[in-house]
């Protein structure tokens, strides 16, 4: 196979795939995050750094909200990290596909920063059709475009929140909870549904108990409860 021509084809495919829905969703959701960041008293640099560095809206949201609440540093760092804990199983299932034909694993430690729900799903979809080298190229281009769209969205939302009429700012900040509420409505699986429902009930209550640790406590109590509840119920279902 002539490496040059297929290489170009892979890059073109990555660009076309990324410029569709993934960029649009990122542009919209990160505009909401940019507005939230400004209203949470983060600077533009910090807003952009959190998009590129955390690179996962759940963690970014937790950071902006807990920072605005003045939570303890340990609680903030733990909540941001836990919010994106799914990166571990995602990396485990996907990164070996990028390792094929790669001598130095250090490259994977750089490429893995581009991993997000979008890039992971796209990478898994195209990998069966590509060689290891083509996968890395596709992933880097696709991920680079996604991150560019996200940074543009973040800056747009940040600047818009300061210059547009107040009601528009309300809407842009409100984009964050609405977006995740619908993402959650789209999810399948019993354990997930129970965890989401219990979390939604406990979250506001535990925030009243402790603004510092309420978010983490909600996750641990509701998440562990949902995990055990679904295990017990499915074990009982099997016995019948």
């Amino acid at each position, binding site marked *: 196979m002539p490496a040059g021509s297929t290489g170009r084809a892979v890059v073109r495919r990555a660009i076309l795939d990324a410029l569709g829905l993934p960029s649009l969703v990122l542009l919209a959701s990160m505009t909401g995050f940019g507005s939230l960041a400004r209203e949470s008293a983060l600077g533009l640099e910090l807003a952009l750094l959190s998009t590129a560095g955390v690179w996962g809206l759940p963690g970014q*949201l937790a950071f902006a909200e807990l920072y605005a609440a003045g939570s303890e540093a340990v609680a903030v760092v733990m*909540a941001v990290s836990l919010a994106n804990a799914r990166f571990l199983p995602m990396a485990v299932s996907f990164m070996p596909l990028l390792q094929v034909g790669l001598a130095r694993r250090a490259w994977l430690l750089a490429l893995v920063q581009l991993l997000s729900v979008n890039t992971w799903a796209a990478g898994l979809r195209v990998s069966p059709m590509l060689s290891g080298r083509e996968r890395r190229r596709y992933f880097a281009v696709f991920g680079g475009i996604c991150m560019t769209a996200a940074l543009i969205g973040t800056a747009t939302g940040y600047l818009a929140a300061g210059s547009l009429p107040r009601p528009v700012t309300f809407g842009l900040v409100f984009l964050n909870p609405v977006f995740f509420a619908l993402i959650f409505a789209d999810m399948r699986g019993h354990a997930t549904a129970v965890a989401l429902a219990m*979390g939604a009930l406990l979250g506001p209550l535990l925030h009243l108990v402790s603004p510092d640790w309420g978010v983490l406590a*909600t996750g641990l109590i509701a998440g562990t409860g949902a995990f055990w509840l679904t295990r017990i119920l499915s074990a009982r279902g099997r016995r019948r």
Partner: protein
Amino acid sequence: MDSSAWPLLLSAIAATYVWRALGVLLSARIDPEGDLFQWVTCVSYAMLAGLIARMTVMPLGVLAETPLVDRLVAMAIAFAVYFGWRRQILPGVAAGVVALILFAMVRENGLLGG
């Protein structure tokens, strides 16, 4: 913005990167479908759902300037459009956002007596 935000964000970024790096380094030795990850996923989703519910019901920042009923109705409209429109997320989000903006504009102009 106080100066503590930078080290805080850098720590949070490092703590997030740990998951990514562990995924690369451990890849062959763990089962992504195992109990441990299912538990972590449950904790992570419950935490986010709690955060989202709290942001809607008792927001901290700018959203606190809007009445609770506006946020709840706007959220209900988002869900209605989402389920009515073949479960498309973007139209649902747009409807919820536009609804809240319209409510706030109408209140600003005194039509709802807010």
